[in-house]
């Protein structure tokens, strides 16, 4: 073969790939950079400044929306991860049993059904309940978020469970541990990284949700994404830049943690 011929290279592919990375990051980086822009313009640089971050920080609507987003995300992550862990334990390493497909379909439903359809369905369903009971609190949002976070929590936990070596649990049983002890002392800790990964995924998914929250929320129940949606439909202030950059930073941190957690292959 001619010298320098690489089996793995195809003409132009590297160029397209690099271009695509540039195109992917250019808008995001522009947004990040201009969040520190001293002037209001989105194209002309006026010097470095933190004024938009200060403005966003002091904006009470932003503060409330952020707190609400975090509260819902934490609650949804807790609920969905707990429920998903139990479901994963119930459906893995058992051999097929009757009705398992139904469980899979139901658990993964949020992945298959377009979000707008779920949003519309929940709007109708909750509207009836709101009128009947008069309760318009956060519970609806927590319920909706927990539901669609389940498949995201389920998949990493299940993957972890399937990759686990049964030998350790068999060893525990050999040492006269009861099933409950085995579960608590051996299985659960081994599942740890999977559960943590699932919880984090659920947290990020809940934090990012726009459509379902937009349809289900009642008066004064804006989350950070719905607040931003409202702003985007009207004004395009650099304040939104600052909020977006902050959210992005949070996502990157969580993602790095997620990567580190799942990189480790015991």
């Amino acid at each position, binding site marked *: 073969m001619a010298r320098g011929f690489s089996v793995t290279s195809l003409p132009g592919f590297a160029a397209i790939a690099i*271009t695509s990375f540039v195109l*992917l990051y250019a808008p995001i980086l522009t947004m990040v950079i201009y969040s520190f822009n001293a002037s209001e313009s*989105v*194209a002309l640089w006026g010097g470095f400044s933190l004024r938009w971050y200060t403005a966003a920080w002091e904006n009470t609507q932003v503060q409330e929306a952020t707190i609400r987003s975090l509260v819902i995300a934490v609650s949804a992550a807790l609920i969905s991860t707990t429920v998903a862990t139990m479901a994963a334990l119930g459906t893995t390493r058992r051999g097929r*049993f009757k009705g398992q497909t139904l469980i899979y379909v139901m658990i993964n439903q949020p992945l298959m059904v377009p979000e707008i359809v779920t949003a519309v369905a929940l709007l109708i369903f909750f509207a009836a309940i709101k009128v009947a009971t008069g309760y318009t609190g956060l519970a609806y949002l927590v319920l909706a978020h927990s539901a669609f976070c389940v498949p995201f929590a389920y998949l990493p936990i299940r993957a972890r469970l399937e990759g686990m070596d049964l030998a350790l649990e068999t060893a525990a049983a050999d040492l006269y541990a009861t099933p409950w002890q085995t579960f608590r002392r051996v299985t659960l800790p081994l599942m740890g990284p999977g559960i943590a990964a699932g919880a984090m995924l659920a947290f990020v998914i809940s934090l990012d949700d726009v459509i379902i929250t937009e349809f289900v929320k009642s008066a004064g129940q804006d989350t950070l994404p719905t607040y931003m949606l409202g702003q985007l439909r009207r004004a395009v202030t650099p304040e939104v830049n600052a909020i977006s950059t902050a959210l992005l930073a949070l996502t990157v941190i969580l993602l790095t943690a997620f990567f580190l957690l799942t990189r480790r292959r015991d």
Partner: protein
Amino acid sequence: MSAPTPSTARTGWILSIPALILLALGASGPLLIVVVYAFLEPGEYSGVVWNFTTEAWFRVFFERDIFDDTVSMADAHLTIFWRSVKLSVLTTLITFAIGFPTAWFIATRPAGQRALWLFLITIPFWTNLLIRTFAIMEVIRNQGLLNTALIGLGVIGEPIQILYTDTAVLIGMAYVYLPLMVLPLYAAIDRFDFRLVEAGYDLYATRWRVLRRVILPIVKPGIVAGSILVFVPSLGAYVTPRILGGGKNMMIGNFIELQFGQGRNWPLGAALSLILLAIVLVALLAYVRVTSSDRQDG
């Protein structure tokens, strides 16, 4: 694994029940209500009147002129469906054209570098959809980066109106869904045995031939997976066309939302949702069919 005992099945079910209840309340149950609502009469400004009628389904395909009562094809609806399908297909093609080389590139990096490139492609994937749409909007606005750069370079004299057009929605969706195409493609190319490519070159095949006859058929499951992952969300997109389309270039998602606001026709909204769901399920079934037949061929 030994055959499941009845108690195994029972435990399996018991452990799954909380998940099933949560999803029944928060996802599946409400869907059934949508089916019911699609067969009711619309209320005056919102809600429904509990009379059975198939008017909503009629209204999806046909319309009655307000003044002379003539029945005709609802071409406004068809336009919206067609725009959604057209933009989704275009988005899939564009993301494939850009995504395949990108996935190939990442998969062929030396093992040490690969994790970094993967990480770089995952960040946009997990970034909030709203943020990504907003970022693209900032670039294509009249006073945004693209127009300012073009004017500065002297290419054009006045800003090009990109925002609030179909093109803007297409650019937005391609940008937002590109990572969704790259990741499954990467997974498939990663598993690809490059010795086959080497064999092809040994037999004096050109690069193009090798690509077409050896590589593409084997990574087909990845291509299909990526296409589905882009096509399905594009079809049901709501946020991106809302922000970049200006309320006029509606896709199915926006049109459905309209029925619950100014359109004042909940049953029609329900019927449209079910049709969207049906199209998506057909696409998913095609995916399952294609991948399982591939697996059988081995």
